[in-house]
């Protein structure tokens, strides 16, 4: 069964489940829905970064308005996530600009906006901290230790040091955050644009003090997430729920673009320092890395972002002696959080630019340097994880180099306005360390008259969850793809399959579904669905995550198997500079990714192309200008994301090296493509003779950077 049987849907580009609805305008996003008697909500936020609230003046007639503050929270005033440190509505203290303080609701949106402009808040201001190096509050510290660092440095001929900086990045899903809260059945139902229904479910239970069955969360069609709708919806859902609870009416809370950019989470900025011991012939003997991330005012998911960041910090290279120290600290800026890649794009940017600098220092070919040190099967990572047969670092590197004609172009471009750069990277699929075991995700499969229905909390946010899950189930059951339906991600109907994050939806949840389908097939024993249902009434198979045998992780020492599997990638990027302005224009990307098995090649390629484009923005365009703790360019007019004119041609090659515990051999694919382009672009700029070590590499930054010959 499964992989051994001739597959009919897996590996083929079957029509996307909700494809037709999306191209005809029939798909319903949260702002497309209305409920009888619905009010509109609005959030009043702090205009200072640190201090205490002294007075609130409403300045408008209250009639027709529902007004709520922290005293209206029926349960605990927190956004329940890892730590209960973040209030849903500020009490006295304010820790960042745009912190939610007061909620307003009214039938009429115009009246609401007018009222908002009349609210005045007096504060007693305090001195905010914006520089993470000066922070006195550390959310999480992680240390990874392998071998004996002193010995590694003693074996080195040369030590190469460097400091690398990465900026904030906004997810910029085109549909802003939004929810509708509806009081019903003595509880609350929330419809919303979100990635993780059960995160919101838990947050609402705590906030409202309600039991499990009184809270229901339903995902509406979601116009992009990229991590930005991982934890933040718990906050906005909480606000809408408080207003709905108080007014006893449905409340819609949909952010406009400015509010979404000013108030919601972004990718953590950071400073990463490398010190590497290397022999003359280019063998890495010691790696010491220091990672500092700015978490913003509250913890959100920062410890987990740091965790993925430090585990990926060496890049895909072997070395016997490694020390990685990571810290994520508090500052008085809006909290940072999940964004595709989750710490790994930051640390692998540093790793791959550093690798280039090691080659420059030694005067050796940077492809040879990478080949020499890249992970092979049987090597161990910094956490001591022994890599399996599905380790493809060398394969993706060689494929990208030959497919892009890297060496010939590098020679040809020398001394011109064209540059070419390369980055090799890897990305762990699924939750880090013991995360999947702790999550204990569940998935269900229900027999229907015509086939089967998938019941999972995994959400479709553009990546093709419904389609790819249905393919796995169809082939495992041996029924046509069209005979598999997918239920809405509604906590009243589906079990907790864990969050839709961390490139886990295919590899982890897909695997649980495969097991459900295997059992259903056994149970059917050759009978048709109709016969079985006529005989037995119904059949629902539910399975829980069960990891491959022998996976080991120790959270105290950070030793063990950090991920079930790694995907492998290599990007080659060609750029052109404008000789006057130093504007860098990427012209062509060659992206090679090894993802185990492409369940749906068009969807998989779409993940790689889309992730690559986001990373082009990260590398060159997307600058969040923070002034006095607030985003000063919170508009699409001055926060620039790649348009058709900024996005280069992207040539994608997918390689398959099956992971034995993934469904049909699949690993994760969603996040990995965002790891490589930024260092590849910066390395291409370096090939033009400029010593750039931070992103976004805007013309100003490039002009300020020393030339390479001078800095060597």
């Amino acid at each position, binding site marked *: 069964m499964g992989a051994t049987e001739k597959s009919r849907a897996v590996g083929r*580009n079957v*029509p*996307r489940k*909700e*494809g*037709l*609805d*999306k*191209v*005809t*305008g*029939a*798909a*319903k*996003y949260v*702002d*497309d829905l209305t409920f009888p008697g619905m009010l509109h909500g609005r959030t009043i936020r702090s205009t200072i970064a640190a201090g205490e609230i002294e007075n609130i003046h409403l300045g408008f007639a209250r009639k027709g308005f529902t007004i709520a503050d922290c005293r209206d929270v029926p349960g605990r005033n927190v956004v329940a996530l890892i730590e209960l440190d973040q209030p849903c509505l500020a009490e006295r203290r304010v820790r960042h600009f745009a912190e939610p303080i007061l909620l307003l609701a009214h039938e009429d949106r115009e009246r609401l906006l007018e009222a908002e402009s009349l609210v005045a808040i007096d504060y007693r201001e305090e001195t905010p901290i914006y520089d993470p190096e000066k922070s006195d509050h550390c959310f999480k510290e992680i240390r990874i230790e392998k071998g004996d660092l002193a010995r590694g440095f003693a074996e080195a001929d040369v030590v190469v040091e460097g400091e690398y900086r990465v900026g904030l990045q906004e*997810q*910029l*899903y*085109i*549909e*802003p955050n939004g929810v509708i809260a509806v009081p019903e059945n003595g509880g609350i139902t929330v419809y919303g644009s979100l990635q993780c229904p059960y995160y919101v479910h838990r947050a609402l239970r705590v906030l409202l003090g309600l039991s499990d069955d009184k809270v229901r969360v339903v995902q509406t*069609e*979601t*116009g*992009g*997430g*990229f991590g930005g709708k991982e934890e933040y919806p718990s906050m906005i859902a909480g606000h809408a729920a408080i207003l709905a609870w108080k007014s006893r009416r449905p409340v819609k809370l949909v952010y*406009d*673009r400015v509010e979404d950019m000013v108030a919601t989470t972004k990718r953590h900025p950071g400073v990463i320092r490398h010190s590497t011991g290397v022999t003359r012939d280019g063998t890495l003997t010691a790696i010491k890395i220091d990672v500092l991330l700015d978490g913003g005012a509250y913890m959100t998911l920062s410890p987990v972002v740091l965790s993925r960041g430090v585990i990926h910090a060496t890049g895909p290279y072997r070395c016997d002696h490694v020390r990685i120290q990571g810290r994520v600290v508090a500052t008085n800026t809006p909290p940072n959080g999940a964004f595709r890649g989750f710490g790994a794009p930051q640390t692998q940017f540093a790793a791959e630019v550093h690798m280039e600098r090691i080659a420059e220092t030694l005067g050796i070919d940077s492809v040879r340097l990478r080949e020499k040190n890249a992970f092979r099967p049987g090597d161990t990572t910094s956490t001591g994880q022994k890599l399996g047969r599905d380790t493809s670092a060398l394969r993706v590197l060689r494929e990208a180099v030959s497919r892009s004609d890297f060496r010939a172009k590098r020679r040809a471009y020398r001394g011109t306005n064209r540059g070419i750069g390369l980055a090799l990277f890897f990305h762990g699929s699924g939750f880090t360390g013991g995360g999947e075991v702790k999550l204990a995700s569940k998935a269900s499969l229900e027999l229907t008259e015509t086939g089967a229905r998938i019941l999972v909390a995994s959400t479709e*946010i*553009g*990546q*093709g969850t419904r389609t790819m899950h249905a393919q796995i189930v169809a082939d495992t059951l041996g029924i046509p793809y069209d005979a598999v339906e997918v239920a809405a991600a509604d906590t009243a109907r589906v079990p907790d399959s864990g969050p839709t994050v961390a490139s886990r939806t295919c590899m982890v949840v897909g695997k649980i579904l495969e097991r459900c389908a295997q059992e259903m097939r056994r149970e059917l024993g050759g009978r048709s669905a109709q016969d079985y249902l006529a005989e037995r009434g119904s059949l629902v198979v539910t399975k829980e995550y069960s990891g491959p045998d022998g996976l080991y992780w120790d959270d105290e020492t950070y030793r063990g198997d950090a991920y079930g599997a790694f995907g492998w990638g290599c990007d080659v990027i060609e750029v052109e500079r404008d000789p006057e302005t130093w504007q860098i224009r990427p012209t062509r990307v060659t992206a090679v990714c090894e993802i185990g098995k492409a369940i749906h090649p*068009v*969807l998989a*390629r*779409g993940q790689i*192309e*889309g*992730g*690559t*484009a*986001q990373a082009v923005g990260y590398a060159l365009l997307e600058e969040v200008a923070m002034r006095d703790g607030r985003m000063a360019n919170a*508009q*699409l*007019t001055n926060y620039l*994301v*790649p*348009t*058709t*004119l900024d*996005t280069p*041609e*992207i040539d994608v090659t997918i390689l398959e090296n099956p992971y034995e515990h993934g469904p049909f051999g699949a690993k994760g694919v969603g996040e990995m493509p965002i790891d490589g382009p930024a260092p590849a672009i910066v390395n291409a700029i370096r090939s033009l003779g400029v010593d750039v070590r931070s992103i976004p590499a805007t013309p100003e930054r490039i002009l300020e950077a020393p030339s390479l010959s001078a800095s060597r």
Partner: protein
Amino acid sequence: MQAPPMKRLLDVLREECGLTGTKEGCGEGECGACTVLLDGMPVNSCLIPFAQAQGSVVTTIEGLEGRHPLQDAFVVEGGAQCGICTPGMILAAAAIPRGATLDEIRLGLAGNICRCTGYTSIYRAIEKARSRRHR
């Protein structure tokens, strides 16, 4: 059709006509999610007061009735991921002349941001829809 003259065409379509296929991504003319055709020309409906559209033919995604070759091609080629930019993107693409080169297509779509696809599959969808039309 009656509506306040200064109301945004976007809101008139979504709220008065119940045509929610037209989306709002920014409300400031930068993302193109609200693109509709005004007498065949793509415009940002978030910037157009209703009065300005009066007497014109407005085409929204619903108006293509699922029969435009671009719609099927967007599904097949993966031109729609999350789908929020898709209605606007398809209408903008529909207004690009048939013989346009890739660079002209790029220019024609430069006002429509897609954060999911990296645009490549959108170009493929446009190619596919054209080759089908020729048959």
